[in-house]
């Protein structure tokens, strides 16, 4: 494999695909699926075929295909493949444009993963950024600008970090950053800029306000955005902390219970993100917003892991990122399937759809298990690793916040589960059909790893271990079925055996008692037909909880941003007055400018 092949398959091929699928009109999603499938096949074939390459397009792009890249590309490719497969049957408007932009975003994401110099990183980062912007623009135009502004803010924070490195090293290569040219005291600045820059894509607090709106776009895209592209933030933070700077440099800024002081504040930020995201998710009635806030919260966990920086924490973060890629895109696709069939977004208006869409229900159920960290899905292992990482170092702020967030995750998961799929079926949904084949296939593809890796976490832990070892972080203790840490670990074989026993027990219980199916209106209201809205449990769900939290929810970060932007826009209108429109004033500007230039000239040149 040479440089051009690598670049060609993972970057140029999607770009070509983007071009082709634009003209594919109705068949665009199918074409796009084929293109992503091809790159997926190559990704599978080239495992282990690692190396560094340089592409010269006038500027030199340094690309490296290694295990870290491969690991993240795997998520990216699977997620986009299933998202596009889902979109085949979801009858999008202007499907050509959709597929084109998805593939452009995919090319950008692959580029970011392959890049080992800042120029190509920034190049692909921006490519990805604006293609997402246009995808968001397709449906929620009002808020696309918000996404773009935060995207650009993230790019500019990166630029600041990159620029400082460039000032000292004169090189864009990742590898040159650690050559010692950069003074020790400058590193915190660089890392802060880079981590915040990447963090915006992960929607960490307080930069999360773009996410709920961007995640309200078309479901196949959002699945890719939340499942795939947001991992680039995790990748970037991982690279900047543990590959560009390196763990020993981080440790040299002082440690707090064995965790670098460079990383700990970001772990706190991650904990805050997990907490806030989860709390806000609980109160959402719009299923898309709920999933969006949940996504924010889950990525907070990843941030915690990356911030703590012990091998267990990073391993957990990686694993959780991997799981999140699958379960969150599965959830978004599941929600998409429901929305596609019912045309409704509000959880309180749905209900009982599990009877009508059993396969969708099953897939979503698994995703929810993984999301809530219930054993039997791989989501449990990754969360458990993160808990252990926090607990083993006695972090009294991070660990409790994580636990609260985890409880919160149960609450909102239950809201989806009960509000959408269980409970009583609405009259108008009586004729809802199961989601079309491609959608089910897409969801199935995403569900499989969640189950498999819960049985054999060793496979994925093997890859993660390789990543950790390659970057000099440490290593994990794992076997095919379990991992162990200083304070415990988990053995999935035991869990599964226990589960199967429990399952048998539950089935026996279920069969022992005869259940009676009760009609919707056959209840305590004594035959009087109640308004169906009020009957549904998802109506005013968690109202008491909401009332408790109301005083806190009043202070919204969203509103703070609005005030901030209003304040600035007002200032802009003041500045505008400089252009008075009166040519006499303008001539006077010229005279003043001349004298000013002259004075500066005297001062500088004499």
């Amino acid at each position, binding site marked *: 494999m040479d440089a051009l092949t690598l670049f060609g398959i993972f970057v140029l091929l999607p770009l070509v695909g983007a071009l082709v699928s634009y003209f594919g009109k109705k068949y665009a999603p199918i074409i796009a699926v084929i293109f992503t499938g091809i790159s997926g096949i190559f990704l599978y074939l080239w495992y282990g075929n690692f190396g560094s390459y340089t592409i010269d397009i006038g500027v030199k792009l340094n690309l490296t295909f290694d295990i870290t890249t491969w690991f993240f590309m795997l998520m990216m490719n699977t997620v986009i493949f299933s998202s596009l497969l889902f979109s085949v049957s979801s009858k999008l408007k202007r499907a050509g444009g959709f597929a084109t932009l998805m593939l452009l975003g995919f090319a950008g994401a692959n580029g970011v993963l392959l890049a080992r110099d800042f120029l190509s990183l920034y*190049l692909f980062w*921006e490519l990805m950024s604006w293609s997402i912007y246009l995808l968001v623009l397709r449906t929620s*135009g009002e808020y696309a*600008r918000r996404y773009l502004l935060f995207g650009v803010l993230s790019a500019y924070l990166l630029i600041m970090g990159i620029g400082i490195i460039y000032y000292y090293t004169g090189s864009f290569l990742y590898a040159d950053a650690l050559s010692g040219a950069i003074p020790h005291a400058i590193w915190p600045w660089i890392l802060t800029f880079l981590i915040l820059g990447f963090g915006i894509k992960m929607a960490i607090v307080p930069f999360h306000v773009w996410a709920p709106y961007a995640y309200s776009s078309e479901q196949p895209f959002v699945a890719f955005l939340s499942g795939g592209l947001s991992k680039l933030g995790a990748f970037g933070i991982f690279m900047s902390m543990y590959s560009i700077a390196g763990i020993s440099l981080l440790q040299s800024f002082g440690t707090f219970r064995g965790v670098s002081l460079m990383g700990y504040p970001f772990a706190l930020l991650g904990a805050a993100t997990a907490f806030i995201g989860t709390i806000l998710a609980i109160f959402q009635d719009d299923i898309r917003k709920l999933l969006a806030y949940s996504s924010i919260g889950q990525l907070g966990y990843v941030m915690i892991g990356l911030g703590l920086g012990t091998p267990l924490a990073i391993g957990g973060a990686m694993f959780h990122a991997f799981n999140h890629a699958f379960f969150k895109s599965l959830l978004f696709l599941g929600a998409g399937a429901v929305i596609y069939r019912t045309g409704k977004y509000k959880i309180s208006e749905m209900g009982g759809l599990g009877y009508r869409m059993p396969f969708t229900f099953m897939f979503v159920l698994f995703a929810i298990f993984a999301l809530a960290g219930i054993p039997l899905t791989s989501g449990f292992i990754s969360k458990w690793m993160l808990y252990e990482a926090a607990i083993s170092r006695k972090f009294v702020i991070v660990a409790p916040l994580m636990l609260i967030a985890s409880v919160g995750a149960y609450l909102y998961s239950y809201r989806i589960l009960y509000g959408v799929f269980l409970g009583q079926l609405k009259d108008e949904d009586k004729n809802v059909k199961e989601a079309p084949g491609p959608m089910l296939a897409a969801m199935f593809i995403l569900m499989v790893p969640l189950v498999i890796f819960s049985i054999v976490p060793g496979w994925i832990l093997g890859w993660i271990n390789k990543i950790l070892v390659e970057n000099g972080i440490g290593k994990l203790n794992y076997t095919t079925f379990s991992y162990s840490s200083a304070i415990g670990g988990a053995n999935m074989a035991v869990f599964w055996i226990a589960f199967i026993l429990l399952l048998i027990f539950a089935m026996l219980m279920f069969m022992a008692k005869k259940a009676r199916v009760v009609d919707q209106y056959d209840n305590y209201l004594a035959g009087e037909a109640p308004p169906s809205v009020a009957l549904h449990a998802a109506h005013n769900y968690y109202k008491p909880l909401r009332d408790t939290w109301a005083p806190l929810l009043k202070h919204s970060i969203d509103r703070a941003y609005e005030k901030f932007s209003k304040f600035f826009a007002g200032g*802009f209108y003041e500045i505008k007055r400089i252009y008075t429109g009166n040519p006499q004033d*303008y*001539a006077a500007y010229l005279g003043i400018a001349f004298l000013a230039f002259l004075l500066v000239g005297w001062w500088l040149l004499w």
Partner: protein
Amino acid sequence: MIRPVLLIALPLFFAFLSPIIGIWSKKGVRYLIIFATALNATLAGILLLEALQKPVFDIIGGFQPPLGIVLMVGPLGAIIAFIINLVAFAISIYNLKVEKEPIVRYSMLYLLLVMGSTGMVLTGDLFNLFVFLEVTSIASYGLAAYNKDKKGYLGAMKYVIIGSIGSTFVLLGIALIYSQLRTLNMLDIAARIGTMDPYVKIMAFTSLFLGFGVEAEMFPLNTWVPDAYDGAPHPISAAFASLPAKAGVFALARVIFTMFSFTNFLWFVVVMGLLTVFFGEIVAYTQKDLKRMLAYSSIGQMGMIIMGLGIGTTLAVEGAFYQMIAHALGKALLFIAAGFLIYAARSGKIEDMKGMARNPLIGIPLLIGALSIMGMPPFAGFYGKFFILMGGFSQGYYAIIALFLAASIVEVAYYARFIKIVFERGNESKVIRPDAATYVPLIILAIIIVVIGVYPKPILTVLQHVGTFIAGGA
């Protein structure tokens, strides 16, 4: 083997010829202009290949410099001339949409605008530069008022006032230099600039800096920009952003690097560039009128170029030149698209243009242009902006770059607002299909933007020579 002088002589020939042809056929003149600009672009392309080997000197009238006039074409001058003529060609196709009489005069003025801008880039003689500056600006004055409505007249009047004050300063500066050095050749001046009286030298520098700053849209000399761009016919707004502005900023670069190598002064140029960006972008944010918004955005972009020149490292100046190219292409594209949108919406207000760009023939080029202007890859604008920023960092201008990035966010904000409105759903019945004279130039420009954005090697190969340019060579 191409003589650079042909790039000036042939347009002049065609411009003088067009009134005669205009007697028989007015349509013929328009196609003649397209032919002339196409020919010029081709010649400029060949010239670029030649200048890459070694700088081309074209001695006029057979008198060795500094006795006579010499055209001095380095790789950088050649590529700017090439881009100017290429964009001029694209715009001349869009000129077919101009219907207002007297169309023959319009075509002549346009061709001479192209010729003047090309001449400003190619010449190696200071006074000749002034002459071409005059040609360019007088052609611009005429074209700015061509619509013959109140907006056009007011814009042109402001342009005339500011522009002529600027030209006067240029002339005074030239007079001061000649009074001391007795020469007008730029390289000759550069060789002996040290012997000038320091006071006179600073006066001359300031005058030239101010004079070319007017064309280069530097703050606070850019006050003519919004009104002139707004009042002019649409193709002319496109031409303003791409031809005289680029020629002006190239002349500014010549003044800064070729003639006076004042390294001490450079950080002030950066500050001026930053102010230009700042005011341009911020005021653009407040505009409700599309063409005015684009005009202010053009100020911002020019400020970025000035900043790049001021930073003065190889990388930054490379970026500045890349940005010149990208901005010439991108802004021309956006103004042409703006012309179509205004025509389609029958209003200049952005809010009236709801969904007007939903036809892909307009929409995709428009999007490419806007993204390129915002500095997004893989379009031409990316490399320019990135290199300027990195050049700034390599000189340690952290605070300035941070402020610049803040202004850039404002830029993104208003472009995003604009894009959102023109792509909004819900006005499908009013969307009209553009005709060939509109979409052909758009597609030409968009393709170039994408090509040099995806594969910047050709441009960067040319821009390698920027080191020589900074050192005072061709």
